[in-house]
């Protein structure tokens, strides 16, 4: 499960209470330096282990040789990074749209909520990765298959987070809207949606990491192009260095996509923040 490395970083960053901030205070410097120092130390230890232990590159390439491969063959890696990133992004956007839409349905229709919600939770218990090969049968080995699988595994956290956000609206505010003869649509655009935005973004942050996992799994089994394909292909030929390089690039792509979502969150926060402008 090499694909999980890039996405794990995102999952950790999206952990509770970890909202990205732009301004760093003195404690902020410490908060950045400490994890960076640990990462550098780990890489150094890895390098030392490989060099001193004389570990063959087929078993474990060193960080330096991996980096050298990336520098020398960046064009090959880029060719494979583009479809992976693109498909992950498309899967993520569709998963977000589907998730928000389902949350709206659940919020506004009691019938839909009662019928849908238990099934969604049950559905979440299925080990969805096991279903990946079926997507090939249903949708072929093209991009649509991987994107569909990415949506399939990524939309759930968006539904849960968004419907929690819609439900979090102050009841007094809803009563005020009702007293002002506001339409449901006005309540949604003026109150419910802005109030739910922080929840929606926390769902989206989980969804982007899951979408990448979905695409990588899709690439593992459809084997056409992409970083997942490259990892499987290189591993089969005992080209561990290539696999490792592909994983590193995957991490970078994952961080890039996650960063875009985080930037979107900051932009939304600017508009819908309770803090002074």
């Amino acid at each position, binding site marked *: 499960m090499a694909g999980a490395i890039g996405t794990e970083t995102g999952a950790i960053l999206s952990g509770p209470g970890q909202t990205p901030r732009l301004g760093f205070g003195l404690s902020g410097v410490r908060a950045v330096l400490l994890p960076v120092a640990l990462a550098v130390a780990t890489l150094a230890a890895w390098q030392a282990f490989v060099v001193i232990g004389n570990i063959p590159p087929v078993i474990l390439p060193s960080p330096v040789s991996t980096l050298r491969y990336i520098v020398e063959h960046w064009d090959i890696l880029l060719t494979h990074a583009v479809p992976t990133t693109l498909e992950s992004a498309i899967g993520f956007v569709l998963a977000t749209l589907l998730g928000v839409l389902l949350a709206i349905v659940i919020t506004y229709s009691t019938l839909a909520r009662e019928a849908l919600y238990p099934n969604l939770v049950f559905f979440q218990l299925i080990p969805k990765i096991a279903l990946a090969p079926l997507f090939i049968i249903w949708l072929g080995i093209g991009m649509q298959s991987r994107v569909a699988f990415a949506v399939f595994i990524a939309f759930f956290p968006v539904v849960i987070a968004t419907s929690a956000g819609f439900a979090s609206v*102050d009841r*007094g*505010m809803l*009563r*005020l*809207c*009702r*007293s*002002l*003869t*506001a339409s449901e649509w*006005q309540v949604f655009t*003026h*109150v419910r949606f*802005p109030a739910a935005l922080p929840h929606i973004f926390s769902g989206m942050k989980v969804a982007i990491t899951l979408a990448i996992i979905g695409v990588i799994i899709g690439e593992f089994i459809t084997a056409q192009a992409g970083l997942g394909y490259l990892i499987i292909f290189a591993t089969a030929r005992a080209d561990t260095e290539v696999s490792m390089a592909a994983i590193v690039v995957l991490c970078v792509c994952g961080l890039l996509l996650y960063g875009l979502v985080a930037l979107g969150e900051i932009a939304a926060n600017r*508009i*819908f*923040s*309770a*803090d*002074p*402008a």
Partner: protein
Amino acid sequence: MAAQPSPRVANAPLTQPAAPLLRIAQVEKVYGGRQGPVRAVASASLEIGRGEFVSLLGPSGCGKSTLLMMIAGLETPTGGTIELDGSPVIRPRRDIGIIFQDATLLPWKTTIENVLFPIRILKLPLAPYRERARELLAMVGLGGFENHKPSQLSGGMRQRVAICRALIHDPAILLMDEPFSALDAITRDQMNEALSEIMDKTAKTVIFVTHSIREAAFLSDRVVVMGGRPSHVVLDERMPFGRPRRLAIEENPEFGRVVRHLRLTIEQAHGTAPTGRSAGGE
């Protein structure tokens, strides 16, 4: 409404010169409870003239808030009729302004945007109301706070914003549901004095729900006491104080006498023996 004779005059006659703005006739509210139906309000009848400040006073659970919510069109009476300005209230209406116990401001909007919220909902042109919002904020002492967010304001200031928001679309009547009960005692006194001043300026018709006897006596032209089981109107009394009013009138022996009378009425309605406590408190 300026053409109407203002009842904001000391010792105004009890008879209403014109048709009342609000007419509540035998209104009743029965909730279907688990242990049989509960009558929250039993046959309440009340008429309120233009420009009057009327308090609905009573202990918790006396049905005063339920009655107010029915006047607002947010609750449906199970019996009787409510008429505002000649037409029945059967659902929320745009000529009603409401202030709740909590300010319920949008935390991400500035003060002035919160005041303009009803204008956006009612789809009225924003530009002319922006100026009015500024004037209202200045009137409640929040000039210069237009671009602050609610998190930067104190509880009392937030409730002043809510008052401006309720007034922005110039509703025929202002309904206030225990608006200051979440504030500390000192802020509450200040808010009462400020509200009295604001209402003298705007001459709005106000229905003010409270369980504070002093607050009701200080603010109102008329105090309507609700109580008993099932709850009904126990007393409807005009307050014999002139305007403008300052908090100092609470030192007045006449004020003490009125408060004592209201307290006794409430206690009798609840079947509790009068206690020996001082009449000045809540």
